């Protein structure tokens, strides 16, 4: 390549990469949170065959490298099922499933953190299991889960960088491209690192504020 210097257009590229990273992060977090919470509800209802199956799949997802999961979805599924999977589709599927596995664990422990006496009291008052879950457990479990959930999501933001390996044009991939063109690894990776760092800090701060709000009802008011 003849142009090996940095150009103003590189800033646009970086912004694009950051946009792809944040966009995929938000989408997969939402899908993952929804799926993970649904799994936890299935567990709450003690559905026979489903619960052990979900627990097994989540254990495998939690205890294997995300990179291998990505390869399985991107290279493995197409060869087995003879269908086409684009890098973005593979990234969305893998990251959502991975996030769901971790959200499932958090949601289960949040539900279990609510004392049995509250559930029994609710049932005695004639609430259905769903009403107990919706009006008694959910509000308290939310406040309990938000801290671990924020930590998880900040971590998952970093995990999104792995999708650059299967060719999604996210921030890390843009970094690799700029690195190859300018041959200035220190500058490029420092800038990319700072962008990831700032994004992580932003989400951590948002999570902390949200937690403060959810916990406001039982915060210590002073004497």
């Amino acid at each position, binding site marked *: 390549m003849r142009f090996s210097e940095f150009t103003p257009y590189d800033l646009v590229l970086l912004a694009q990469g950051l946009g792809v990273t944040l966009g995929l992060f938000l989408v997969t977090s939402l899908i993952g949170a929804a799926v993970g919470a649904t799994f936890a509800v299935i567990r709450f209802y003690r559905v026979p065959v489903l619960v052990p199956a979900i627990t097994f799949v989540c254990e495998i997802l939690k205890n294997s*490298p995300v990179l*291998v999961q990505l390869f*399985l979805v991107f290279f493995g599924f197409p060869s087995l099922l003879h269908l086409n999977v684009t890098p973005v589709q593979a990234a969305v599927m893998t990251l959502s499933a991975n996030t769901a596995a971790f959200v499932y664990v958090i949601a289960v422990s949040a539900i279990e953190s609510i004392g049995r006496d509250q559930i029994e009291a609710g049932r005695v008052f004639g609430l259905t299991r769903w009403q107990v879950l919706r009006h008694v457990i959910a509000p308290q479990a939310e406040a309990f889960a938000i801290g671990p959930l924020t930590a998880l999501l900040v971590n998952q933001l970093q995990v999104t960088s792995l999708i650059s390996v299967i060719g999604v044009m996210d921030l890390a991939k843009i970094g690799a491209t700029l690195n190859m063109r300018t041959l200035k690894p220190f500058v490029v990776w420092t800038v990319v*690192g700072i962008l990831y760092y700032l994004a992580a800090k932003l989400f951590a701060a948002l999570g902390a504020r949200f937690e403060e709000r959810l916990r406001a009802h039982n915060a210590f008011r002073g004497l």
Partner: protein
Amino acid sequence: MLRLDLTILVPHLGFLARGALLTAQVCVLSLIGSVLIGVAVALARTASKPWIRRVAFVYVDLFRNIPFIVQLFFFYYGLPEIGLYLDAFTTGVIALSIAGGAYASDVLRAGILAIDNGVLEAAEVSGLPRRVIFRRIVLPIALRTSVRPLGSVLINMILTSSILSTITLNELTGQAKIVASDTFRPFEVYVVLLVVYAALTYLVSIGIALLHRALNRDLQPQVA
């Protein structure tokens, strides 16, 4: 047409085992490196001078909030720029040690802070110099009580080491990539790889739990 035939992997098992061995080597070396860095940084983070604490915190904060793949590329492409030509193995171990060190230091710091003040006061009253207090009293207790959380750092390291395949280091995942492209059976290869990693980390976690219990026997609550 669904074909799932795991027997095609049999001729490649030796090849994959060599990758697993390399993964084990990388992880053991990086664990040693990250515990060494972790001890130094934990010491700095519990130091009495505020500026030392702040510098150590910046290190931990940075390396925990930047994706490992970015750190890895920073070292892999950056070090030759300043005249340090290291192979992928060494670079990988260095990067994993530095990243793992940030996590290990958090664990060890918690271990140090959990030490009973009375123990430290007794040591000071006995007239032991500060070096000796740290080396002979603080460190053994902190290391012993943080075996289990250090084990989670190791397990994370085993999973993270798969990323080293992106800098041409052919550990377990790198070898599997080669097998997948040789056999044209990526599904079988990666499914097996997924299960192998899960089984490996499961076994390691059992071993750590046993080690933790053996080392902390005297701290267990007495059961009549």
